[in-house]
């Protein structure tokens, strides 16, 4: 088995695993994107049976597709193998999302059957006036950390262009570069653009509200968690920037592949840190007091659509991190812009 296939199988297992356990990356009073008054919903008999059904169908699908992936190399030539992999991956995401949506609908029905709970309200909201902006929003100074490496990358590309070899490595495997492209401004600038995109994304998420709607106790410790996540994101960005910087530098002078591997492993470590932070600050906290019942604003418990909410970024209902308010045109413009730039420069 080649290195590439091993990497692909590894990627499949990680993506499938994260996809299936997604519903567990939520607050304790949220089940499949549906909000409840207390965390005791996880002990509810019917809720447990919805979870089991979801696990069986989503896990079973992932396993079936994995067997198909193992058999694919016997039927497809090397060239078509990666295309086959992409198709299987897409099918897995579509089918498992379908099972998730099914579970979301069943949970909504369960909630209706349970009747009204006084703690869940659609009308009342409590906010903490005591926190100043300086405490809740990460200072812009943190973003200055990202500038030096960005400038260095740009400088290397700008002044080093005449010295860059005619063939440029664009993809790096475990044993060094494994894909090459013909030298052009378009290709050499793509790492610079990637760095810029990362920076812009952080600049935007910085403005996410400092609390989860309802009351400060609906999500205790959230402001602190958000700040730590932002700092983690900036350090992650910095490391990714260094990775892009090394990549650009390797156009001119050979860099030992070991450096790429080390940085890649450290980046993976940050992903694990993110999950741990989520477990510590979100999953383990218990909500109390009036909780805003905004299920109607969450399509399938995944997409947030609220015309009356001026915030662009909100905490994800299910999963780690932030999602955008789809009712805000600016969210669409930013998303489409990022996708277009990513597509243009990944070609």
């Amino acid at each position, binding site marked *: 088995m080649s290195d590439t296939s091993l990497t692909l199988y590894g990627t499949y297992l990680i993506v499938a695993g994260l996809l299936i356990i997604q519903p567990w990356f939520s607050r304790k009073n949220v089940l499949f994107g549906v909000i409840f008054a207390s965390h005791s919903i996880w002990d509810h008999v019917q809720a447990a049976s919805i979870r089991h059904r979801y696990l069986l169908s989503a896990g079973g699908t992932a396993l079936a597709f994995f067997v198909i992936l193992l058999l694919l190399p016997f039927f497809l030539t090397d060239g078509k193998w990666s295309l086959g992999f992409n198709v299987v991956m897409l099918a897995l995401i579509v089918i498992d999302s379908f099972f998730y949506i099914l579970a979301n609908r069943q949970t909504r029905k369960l909630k209706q059957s349970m009747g009204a709970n006084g703690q869940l309200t*659609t*009308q*009342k*909201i*409590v*906010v*903490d*006036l*005591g*926190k*100043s*902006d300086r405490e*809740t*929003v990460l200072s812009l100074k943190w973003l200055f950390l990202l500038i030096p490496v960005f400038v260095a990358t740009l400088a290397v590309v700008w002044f080093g262009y005449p010295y860059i070899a005619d063939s440029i490595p664009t993809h790096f495997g475990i044993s060094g570069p494994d894909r090459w492209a013909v030298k052009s401004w378009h290709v050499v600038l793509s790492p610079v653009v990637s760095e810029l995109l990362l920076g812009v994304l952080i600049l935007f998420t910085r*403005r996410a*509200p*400092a*609390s989860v*709607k309802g*009351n*400060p106790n609906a999500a205790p410790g959230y402001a602190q968690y958000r700040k730590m996540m932002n700092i983690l994101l900036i350090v992650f960005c910095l490391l990714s920037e260094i990775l892009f910087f090394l990549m650009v530098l390797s156009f001119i002078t050979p860099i030992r592949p070991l450096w790429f591997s080390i940085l890649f492993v450290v980046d993976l470590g940050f992903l694990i840190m993110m999950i741990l932070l989520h477990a510590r600050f979100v999953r383990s906290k218990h909500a109390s007091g009036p909780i805003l019942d905004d299920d109607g604003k969450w399509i399938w418990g995944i997409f947030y659509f*609220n015309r*009356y*909410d*001026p*915030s662009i970024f909100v905490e994800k209902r299910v999963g780690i991190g932030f999602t955008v308010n789809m009712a805000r045109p600016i969210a669409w413009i930013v998303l489409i812009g990022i996708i277009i730039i990513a597509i243009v420069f990944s070609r």
Partner: protein
Amino acid sequence: MLLSIDFGSDQPIYMQIRNGIVTGIASGTLKDGDSLPSVRTLGTEIGVNLHTVNKAYQLLQSEGFIEIQRRRGTFIKAGDAAKHAAEFLKNCGGPLKTLVSEAVTRRIDRAVLHQMIDHMYDELEGNKS
């Protein structure tokens, strides 16, 4: 300080924000020099348009409860509120008269009403000390 907003209430949101802050100052939870969140932050926190928050802040400034400094932010400035006392007394005559009239029609004893006001006063001043 915790500010409570009720979307189902007849009272407009900007008045609820304004009243909440005035009560906070009266009870001593908000003190002179305390900073308030920016218009944008409070708007996103509550989930209302920033013009709504701005309306409340402008009203509070014109009534002398807060000071909006262009660069530094918004601060409680309760000291100024006392200067507007005469204006307040003139304005509150109307709503107070409606309340007293209703109390009279309902045959509520003058002393009970007095007691109620005294009690509220004591509660707010008790919180301060």
